[in-house]
């Protein structure tokens, strides 16, 4: 199930096993049969580290989603709540516990907080008079969840807002803790680089935690050579642009959650004859997307324009393979053919799925509006007409396109102009408030606070300098056989990844000027290693860099980093960690103000 986690340069299965073991140990503490009551949000992330079979081995007989009033009946000794430390969930738990039938068999209650116990939540349980009902109240520090062979995420949807709007550093603390866990498993990371205020904080916390951890010396041979901590607000631009890789577009259009995507079912109707063939399924088709699927691993990071040719090539290979059966004459040959069948059928199924998904995406990307939007984005990113009211945005508002789409575009324009002229900003604000409702004034303020939408100060636009120095806009981009990371946005090279690229070669000293324009400090720290653990790199051996995006990362950025990892003379392979896998839409959505 998780074999794909060990394909990469760093075996992330080790981490997965460590968290699985911790889960088993907790379950065994609550002896006897059990039912788990789930905070529904957690089932997705947990699905990435454990299956029901693991829970069953430890006597979990029933599972429910957390909801108000009474718990469903379950003939078990223990009821365990798996919850995030959120006050509103405590209220529901209390309701469950209080409405427990006293005449029934006594059951033991436990709480497992993920990823952290919270004094505030326990206080709430106490106020509601149920704190004493729980035998075990523990925390399960599922800080970094392995998503793929080179990808880890905390899946903390509020992290960006908390860090950059509220100034609450709790998620940074979790990030630091997650990094300490990683170091315990994969060795001390000798060099830490960083850019941004939050990056600085995390590095400080790590150094402090290491100092406090006075116990035994970490004797694991280091796997990572470097850690690069990057603040999302160093590069606010990239997530706003529409991702143009295959995986990025799936995420933009359908949204990938915990490596699953839900798709409209029509294209996936079973083509078998007979009954039921006519009735189209109405439930969304759910597919898991990760590198365990050979074909997906090959196409996920390609520019969408290069996906079609791969799919058709695969189709030819597979049908040729099936044709082989006519050539199989001897028993031996037939036997060999048959032995390959399951693999071939899996490949065919996978091909069918991705052909359908590609068709769905193509319907969108070939639409007139998609083209217009993309043209606008690309003009902004290449620095054209960013200082006046844009006709296309005006049209979108007049036609009441989704507010998030409008906000993404306006923010993109603002970022590409180092802020909008006051007059332009006021005009957009007014149009948006009149068309979508005055209450969005709160959202606009949040965007302003996050630096996404702001008036230009000092009358100077520094974006052109950044763009030219970092070569963010590339005119000749090869989508089929890329030579530069800019292929992931068909021309725009993501700033964040460019920073990583330049750090590894020739080093940040070459771009001091731009680094000073970008927000927050940049720094370097060393964590000395005992001589026995110091690595002697073989000639030609790549370095391994762990790059941590504080505040979220997009699939297109991940694709660009994988592209760099695969370059023959690149010299660096990347493992990517983040607080949240996100795209422009989910990002803006998290910043929107909703009723309490």
């Amino acid at each position, binding site marked *: 199930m998780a074999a794909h986690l060990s394909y990469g340069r760093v075996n992330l299965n080790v981490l997965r096993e460590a968290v699985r073991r911790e889960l088993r140990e907790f379950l065994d503490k609550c002896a006897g049969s059990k039912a788990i009551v789930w905070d529904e949000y957690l089932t997705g992330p947990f699905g990435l580290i454990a299956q029901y079979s693991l829970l069953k081995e430890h006597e979990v007989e029933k599972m429910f989603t957390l909801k108000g009033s009474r718990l*469903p*009946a379950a*003939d078990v000794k223990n009821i365990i709540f798996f919850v995030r430390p959120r006050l*509103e969930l405590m209220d529901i738990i209390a309701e469950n516990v209080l409405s427990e039938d006293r005449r029934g068999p006594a059951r033991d209650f436990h709480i497992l907080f993920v990823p952290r116990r919270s004094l505030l939540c326990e206080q709430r349980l106490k106020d509601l008079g149920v704190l004493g009902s729980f035998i075990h109240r523990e925390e399960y520090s599922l800080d970094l969840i392995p998503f793929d062979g080179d990808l880890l995420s905390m899946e903390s949807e509020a992290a960006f807002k908390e860090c950059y709007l509220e100034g609450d550093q709790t998620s940074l603390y979790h990030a630091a803790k997650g990094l300490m866990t990683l170091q315990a498993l994969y060795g001390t990371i000798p060099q830490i680089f960083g850019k941004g205020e939050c990056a600085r904080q995390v590095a400080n916390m790590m150094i402090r935690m290491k100092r406090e951890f006075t116990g035994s010396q970490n004797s694991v041979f280091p796997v990572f050579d470097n850690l690069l901590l990057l603040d999302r607000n160093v590069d606010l631009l990239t997530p706003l642009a529409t991702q143009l890789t295959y995986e990025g577009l799936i995420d933009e259009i359908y949204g990938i959650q915990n490596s699953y995507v839900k798709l409209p079912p029509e294209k996936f109707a079973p083509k078998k004859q007979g009954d039921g063939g006519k009735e189209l399924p109405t439930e969304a088709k759910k597919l898991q997307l990760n590198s365990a699927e050979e074909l997906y691993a090959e196409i996920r990071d390609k520019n969408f324009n290069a996906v079609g040719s791969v799919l058709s090539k695969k189709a030819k290979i597979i049908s040729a393979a099936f044709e082989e059966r006519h050539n199989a004459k001897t028993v031996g040959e037939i036997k060999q053919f048959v032995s390959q069948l399951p693999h071939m059928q899996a490949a065919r199924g996978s091909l069918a799925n991705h052909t359908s998904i590609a068709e769905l995406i193509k319907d969108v990307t070939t639409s007139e509006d998609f083209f217009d939007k993309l043209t606008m984005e690309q003009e902004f990113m290449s620095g054209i007409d960013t200082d006046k009211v844009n006709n296309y945005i005006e049209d979108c508002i007049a036609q009441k396109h989704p507010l998030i789409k409008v906000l993404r575009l306006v923010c993109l324009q603002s970022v590409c102009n180092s802020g909008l002229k006051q007059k332009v900003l006021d005009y957009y604000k007014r149009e948006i408030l009149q068309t979508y409702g005055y209450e969005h004034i709160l959202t606009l303020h949040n965007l302003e606070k996050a630096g996404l939408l702001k008036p230009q100060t000092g009358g100077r636009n520094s974006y052109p300098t950044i763009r030219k120095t970092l070569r963010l806009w590339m005119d000749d981009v090869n989508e089929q056989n890329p030579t530069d990371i800019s292929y992931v946005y068909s021309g725009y090279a993501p700033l964040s990844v460019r920073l990583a690229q330049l750090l590894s070669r020739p080093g940040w000293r070459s771009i001091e000027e731009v680094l000073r324009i970008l927000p927050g400090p940049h720094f370097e720290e060393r964590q000395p290693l005992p001589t026995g653990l110091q690595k002697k790199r073989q000639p030609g051996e790549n370095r391994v860099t762990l790059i941590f995006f504080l505040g979220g990362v997009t699939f297109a950025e991940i694709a660009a980093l994988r592209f760099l990892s695969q370059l023959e003379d690149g010299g660096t392979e990347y493992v990517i960690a983040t607080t949240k896998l996100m795209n422009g839409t989910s990002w803006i959505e998290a910043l929107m103000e909703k009723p309490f």
Partner: protein
Amino acid sequence: MNRTKGDEEEYWNSSKFKAFTFDDEDDELSQLKESKRAVNSLRDFVADDDDDELERVSWSGEPVGSISWSIKETAGHSGSTQEGREQLKNQSRNSFSSYAQLPKPSSTYSLSSFFRGRTRPGSFQSLSDALSDTPSKSYAPELGRPKGEYRDYSNDWSVSDTVRRLRKGKVCSLERFRSLQDKLQLLEEAENMHDGNVITAVLIFLKRTLSKEILFRELEVRQVALRHLIHFLKEIGDQKLLIDLFRFLDRTEELALSHYREHLNIQDPEKRKEFLKTCISLPFSAEDSAHIQDHYTLLERQIIIEANDRHLESAGQTEIFRKHPRKASILNMPLVTTLFYSCFYHYTEAEGTFSSPINLKKTFKIPDKQYVLTALAARAKLRAWHDVDALFTTKNWLGYTKKRAPIGFHRVVEILHKNSAPVQILQEYVNLVEDVDTKLNLATKFKCHDVVIDTYRDLKDRQQLLAYRSKVDKGSAEEEKIDAILSSSQIRWKN
């Protein structure tokens, strides 16, 4: 599952014993624990996962055996006893309604209501009780805890020890830190730890034991703690203290926004309106201030219009409401939607009424462009082509009429087409498009043959005209018209 009561008891007892001894570090059995752990971990790596086989996937895509799949499955089979079946029935009946109650991940709705319900000022003071409580009183025996930990509840931890224990989630009393200096040291230590959970715990303690003035004064110079307090107050919905704090810090705009935000939680339109009225005088920026004023005026308007129209609609006397029943209430809709509504239902009303479009335009200073767009969409939807015509007709001082559109006629054509206007109407407006290329594009797209043909004729473009001939129906009037033009000797073709 069929274990008898006795079995269960025995099971429980034995496991109790096990848990107890295992966690006692001094016991030799702890070594057993070590080896058991080693064996366990070995098994993890060696016999890795029976789930390693090819995955089975249900139609909805949940891999069979995944957690979310199993929740549905195991919750479905609620046992075979009579009682179980009974429960199952209840459960399935409940599950629908209660499912909807489950808060979305980001919502915090129940939180504020909870705290707002508690008006007694001292009601929050029980945290320290919780923190200093000895668990032996209130909990079942803590079997998993090594004996040593009971020492945790002693009272002589230093500031830094206390903070470190809090961070590990251990129970710890803060009560004995009485002097201001101690309290601030506690806060500083927590800040240095960067653990939001601990900072918040200390802040709750300070909030309870310090006067507001001192708390605010001390936090003003401690930015990290200050931000946590603001976040915490927002989360528990303590609006009053939050506003006092902003006032103290002289952060006037935040104060205003934070107060204004409250209106989102008020459902009743009258109450919401009254609340918005209190927002008008708040210290917003000049620009925002105008928007807030408009927000109030709009809702005030909507309440009047809504009452009036609901009455008209139920009386059943007014044709427009009979023909086009209202789909939703106009309350709390955006301004442009309200304008559309009034152009739809109240287009001809005199400027004096609250519901007339012209009145809305004036009150809210809606720009011409916006107004024309909205009116056009509304009138086109009603297929009131005469109104559409009037919208673009201007008279000059000599009395000549002229067509003008502030939004450009290409936009007019598109909106008309979206509302399936007949070809004659479309044609008229396509003809008014100035740019020839745009005009040709639109005419071709919307099949306004006459416009296309005439334009090519005027351009003297024989080739394009010939090409277009192949696109129209055989034997149609269009074909005839093209043929007539092509054979005309009057035209000097450019190609």
